[in-house]
């Protein structure tokens, strides 16, 4: 065996020669400290001892140990959605760090999940990762970056020059094609350990599976020609299944929900419809009419309509959220003088609306219960207004948003856990937070993106929640929110059914739901709106079904649940 000696011995020997002796107590301390620093053994997960607040489910612990002991840190974590692939990967990372088997870790995730991963790794797993947003050197030891960002020059060459101990890639089905930049980039990274996370390692073609496995362990499935000859009957039908399974099980871990016997508590949803006051209703309708006019003009001219969509969502949330945007938009050069004038007037009108139907109903609702409640809103202005109103009414509430530092976020969550009954949260910044100690949430406004709905509910409806989760949706009568609710609840049943990683499902189907909802709500009216929403809902449901079939196929391929 290669034995490596170090020059640092000279320091100790010199001290001995120079009789720089320490006390016996210090010498004993040195011995014990050195002994303690060598405590290891993969039979016990040090990460779990270091993180007492984290409890792994048996399937998660099994996965972690298998990856560490049998797969030597190169594995595809292919658990079914919602079974905790992120926490498994996090514990593996922590374990490698604690054992000094890894020092430099690169986590590559889709841009939309960067914050979520950061929260999870930073807050729950206590690992000081940095988000690569351009301000961080690639030489840092622990980095989370979006794959798209890292693979582009000038970052690409900088990343490829680094040597990583561990690389983690989330949503690894994006590496299914070996001719893409994604695949080539990850393949070129210098890495000792590699974790690929995906619930759908194969989507349309067994070649995708081949490409992912080859990225992980070249040669595991031989060359593609050999793989095809031996294991592929047609694109979606494998042959020599037992042999293929055996090879896949050497590098891939998958658990499905049935196997784990895990059951989440039920979700129940209640819609609270509120009436608008006269002034509020006038402001709402006038603003929406104005926005529709501008939207149709801009859309037909191929101009950017995203600010209009945002404004429409703000109007649905609260006049306070809309006023600032109205004023800002009134200065926009792409608008006609008439449009600018109208927007200015609307901003003035919005300033006069101090009380809304939603606020009145919210105060009644809060008065009727003493249990903890999370109020979700998409907009910071609405959040500020709600906090002010609740405080004025004598209720204690804390606000959680993306602008807080990590320490502030921790404090807010701790206060909510201990004493404060109400948490007002915006979407941003809290994706990885566990709020299972609360089981009631109120959607003050509705996101137009199904992914956001699942994220909100997912904060409380997750492993560890012991009570049934109660969801309240606050909807203004006669507003476009009724359409949004129709789509999300009536058609997609998102509030009551556990769909899982909605974003993964929808994005893999290539549907841009938020944009389509905006098109429908701002571009159509009446029956047409309903018809278009139904069509969109069908598309989304189809994607859910396809995803479900994919899961079954992956299970079959890996022999999961077949025993």
């Amino acid at each position, binding site marked *: 065996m290669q034995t490596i000696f170090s020059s640092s011995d000279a320091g100790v020997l010199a001290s001995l020669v120079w009789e720089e002796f320490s006390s016996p107590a210090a010498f004993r301390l040195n011995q014990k400290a*050195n002994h303690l620093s060598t405590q*290891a053994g993969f039979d016990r997960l040090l990460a779990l001892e270091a993180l007492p607040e984290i409890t792994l489910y048996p399937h998660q612990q099994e996965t972690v140990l298998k990856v560490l002991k049998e797969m030597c840190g190169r594995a595809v974590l292919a658990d079914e959605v919602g079974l905790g692939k992120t926490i498994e990967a996090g514990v593996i990372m922590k374990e490698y760090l604690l054992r000094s088997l890894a020092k430099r870790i690169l986590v590559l995730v889709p841009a939309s999940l960067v914050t979520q991963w950061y929260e999870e790794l930073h807050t729950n797993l206590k690992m000081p990762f940095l988000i690569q947003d351009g301000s961080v050197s690639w030489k840092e030891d622990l980095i989370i970056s979006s794959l798209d960002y890292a693979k582009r020059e000038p970052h690409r060459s900088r990343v490829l020059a680094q040597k990583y101990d561990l690389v983690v890639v989330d949503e690894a089905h994006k590496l299914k094609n070996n001719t893409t930049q994604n695949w080539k980039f990850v393949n070129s990274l210098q890495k000792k350990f590699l974790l690929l996370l995906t619930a759908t390692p194969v989507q349309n073609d067994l070649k995708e599976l081949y490409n992912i496995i080859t990225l992980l362990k070249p040669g595991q499935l031989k*060359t593609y020609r050999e793989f095809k000859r031996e294991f592929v009957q047609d694109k979606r039908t494998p042959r020599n299944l037992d042999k293929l399974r055996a090879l896949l099980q050497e590098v891939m871990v998958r658990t499905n929900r049935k196997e784990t016997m895990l059951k989440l508590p039920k979700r129940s949803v209640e819609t609270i419809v509120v009436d608008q006051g006269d002034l509020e209703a006038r402001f709402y309708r006038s603003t929406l009419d104005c926005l529709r006019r501008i939207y149709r003009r801009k859309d037909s001219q191929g101009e950017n309509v995203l600010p209009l969509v945002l404004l429409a969502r703000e109007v649905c949330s609260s006049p306070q959220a809309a006023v600032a945007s109205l004023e800002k938009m009134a200065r926009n050069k792409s608008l006609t003088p008439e449009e600018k004038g109208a927007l200015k007037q609307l901003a003035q009108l919005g300033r006069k609306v101090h009380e809304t139907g939603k606020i009145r109903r919210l105060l009644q609702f809060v008065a009727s219960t003493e249990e903890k409640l999370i109020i979700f809103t998409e907009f910071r202005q609405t959040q500020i207004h709600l906090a002010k109103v609740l405080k004025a009414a004598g209720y204690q509430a804390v606000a959680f948003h993306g602008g807080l530092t990590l320490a502030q976020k921790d404090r807010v969550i701790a206060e909510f856990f201990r004493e404060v009954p109400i948490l007002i949260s915006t979407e941003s910044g809290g994706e990885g937070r566990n709020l299972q100690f609360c089981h009631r949430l109120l959607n003050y406004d509705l996101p137009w993106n199904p992914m956001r709905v699942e994220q909100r509910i997912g904060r409380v409806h997750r492993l560890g929640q012991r009570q049934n989760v109660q969801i309240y949706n606050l909807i203004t009568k006669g507003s476009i929110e009724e359409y949004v609710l129709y789509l999300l609840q009536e058609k997609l049943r998102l509030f009551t059914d556990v769909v899982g990683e909605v974003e993964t499902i929808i994005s893999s189907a290539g549907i841009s739901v938020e944009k389509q909802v905006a098109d429908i709500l701002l571009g159509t009216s009446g029956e047409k709106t309903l018809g278009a929403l139904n069509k969109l809902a069908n598309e989304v449901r189809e994607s859910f079904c396809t995803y479900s079939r994919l899961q079954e196929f992956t299970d079959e391929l890996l022999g999961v649940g077949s025993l």
Partner: protein
Amino acid sequence: MSFKETIRDFLASYSEALDATIEPIKEGVFRLETGDESLTYTFDPTIAGLEGVEYLTFGHPALDRMIARGRAQGQTAHLFLPLNNEQMVQFKDALNSIPLLRYPALPTAVRLVYQPLVVFNFHLALLADLRREEVVALAVDPETGQVRLWQLPADAVSFSRGFSLQPDRRKRPRSKDEYITSDLADHIQRFQWLKETKYSLYRLYKAGCQFLKEWINRRYATFETEQVKRLEEEKATLDHYYQGLLDEEMASLYQLLHKAAVLEVRVALAKREETRRQFSQELEAVEREISAEKKRCQRVSEKLAAEKSKRLHELATKYLPKARIRLVSAAYVYLPRAQVNTVYYTPNFQGSTVFTYDFHQDRWLPLACEVCGEEVPALVIGHKGEHLCLRCALCCEVCRGFFTPHPADECSACGRRLCPQCAASCRVGNPAPCGLCLECASQICSDCSGLTGGSAFPGRNLY
């Protein structure tokens, strides 16, 4: 010791060495205070998190910090192991069981001596896809150079310093001389300063390193074999994969070469000039294609080779085990021992010898047999006063004394085992003993019978 107990024990040492205080705050909660640090901790995860109470376990930043601080302390020491009452009582008992077999032995004088040892604590990190670490403590005997695995007892106390009478020729190692090396000779070569300063320590350190290297090879031989096997398997998979890829890439070239060969034959066999020209043109075109294809294959091959080399390097980094050794602390240690002068009485003579008792091991130190060199827990005294083990000593059946066996040490008349002192001459009386016991010596042995022409003793070897 459980993990919690290990941490608790460490914290006790930490507070002792660094003047920190640990006090219980309430059931299961403690506070550690040093001059610049305060930590409220518990070993019970159910209490942790409340009122700033931290769950202290492996991986906790505060514990990591304390471990790092502990490792920076006390790298060298000058220690001796004191005697306590219990050890003295044990020693008195041991005096009744001096490890001398068969003969009565009486201790006549006791002298307390301190046996010097140099203790080296090496941190050993075994690096492969898994990491194993341990601290290996070695004790090297300066007198014999013998190295053994040894744990320093917990009750060592500080020895007064500065008693060395050696001239001060101490040298410092050169500070810029930083390296890591896998060659022990090279490593030792760099300790010239130590060799010139304190040769004895240099010699002992070298012996320690040598011992450790061999010990690692013995202890982790199976692990290394397993790792190498895994590496070979992974390499074989990679070889097959890249060879397959290359073959697939080369397939078109092979086809072209085959086509060219066929065309060459056709050109050679063509009966008509026109046909030959046509085939020749086709051949030229194919050769151009071959040339381009060769270049492409060359590029692909180089690319694949580079990629394979990268993967192989990754595999080697991951699987090939390496043992990284670092000296983390060292000490001069003096062990108390009693040298007991003992008088013994054999049937033939009275003698004395010195036995050494180790207080800390509560046992007599093994003595070496003067014949075979083996260390044994108990000895017998030979007829010349030599120390013998029971394997090398034979008991004389005449005088019951012990002796070292020799082919001639048997009575040639009656066949009884015989020590040299009991061997006698026959009545003819050669100057050298005839190999007879005293009882048989009244006869004439076979060797002497020829000289006298008389009748020999009617024994086995007598006339």
